[in-house]
């Protein structure tokens, strides 16, 4: 049996990697994927906690996170594609304006 703390430690590592990814990359798609990575790290922690405390609330929360992530990805990708259509290039540094 693997102690839950292992899972939460892994979750912390993945979350930190996700944070670093968000900061160091310029491609909005990769930043977006790093965010997904962070969400997953959180999910892993939730499931581990749920396992630890012997109830299913953690898993239910994970389901909600997944649903929200799906919605977020759909909207986010649509925005990125729309921006790309206008700008013909992809870099978050170009996206400091609220309007274009």
């Amino acid at each position, binding site marked *: *049996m693997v102690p839950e*703390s292992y899972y939460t430690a892994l979750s912390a590592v993945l979350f930190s990697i996700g944070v670093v990814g968000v900061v160091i990359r310029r491609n909005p798609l990769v930043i977006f994927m790093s965010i997904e990575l962070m969400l997953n790290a959180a999910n892993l922690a939730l499931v581990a906690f749920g396992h630890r405390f012997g109830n299913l609330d953690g898993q239910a929360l994970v389901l*909600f996170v997944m649903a929200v992530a799906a919605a*977020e990805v759909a909207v986010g990708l649509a925005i990125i*594609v729309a921006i790309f259509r206008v700008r013909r290039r992809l*870099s978050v540094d170009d996206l400091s304006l609220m309007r274009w």
Partner: protein
Amino acid sequence: MARAAFFVLAALATGSALGLILKKNAIHGALFLVVNLGSIAVLYLMLGAEFLAAAQVIVYAGAIMVLFVFAIMVLIPGKEETGPDPRRAYRLLALPLGAALLLLLGGVVAGRLGAPAAAGAAGDAGALGRLLFTRYLFPFEVTSVLLLAAMVGVLLLARRGA
């Protein structure tokens, strides 16, 4: 046995996460993320959350990441992040900050979950469903509204010349 499997999966997950943020090529990054999601799904399985594992693969790997790969293919990137980076110094700052965050999180986790595990709950799909439709009914319905809103928003965004 289970411990060895965990370490293999953890290494796979960490490695693929690093691959995601370090690979220049966005397609490779996306595929690394798929590997990461898959290994986490197996971890769910080890935690007894079979339904979540399947949902993870279907929703994340099967749908969300396909969308990502699709978007990357449509946009054919690969040329971005090639020029000189005007904010290199800021970005390099991320590494020590990330390490600090890791230490912080590690400290918190290590403090709270040192105790050995109690018996895990049965992750059976029926029980999970029952929970969703009783205790979490309101959030569940709100999620459906959120998905609907997202769908409408995407449709609006995707219309050309809007």
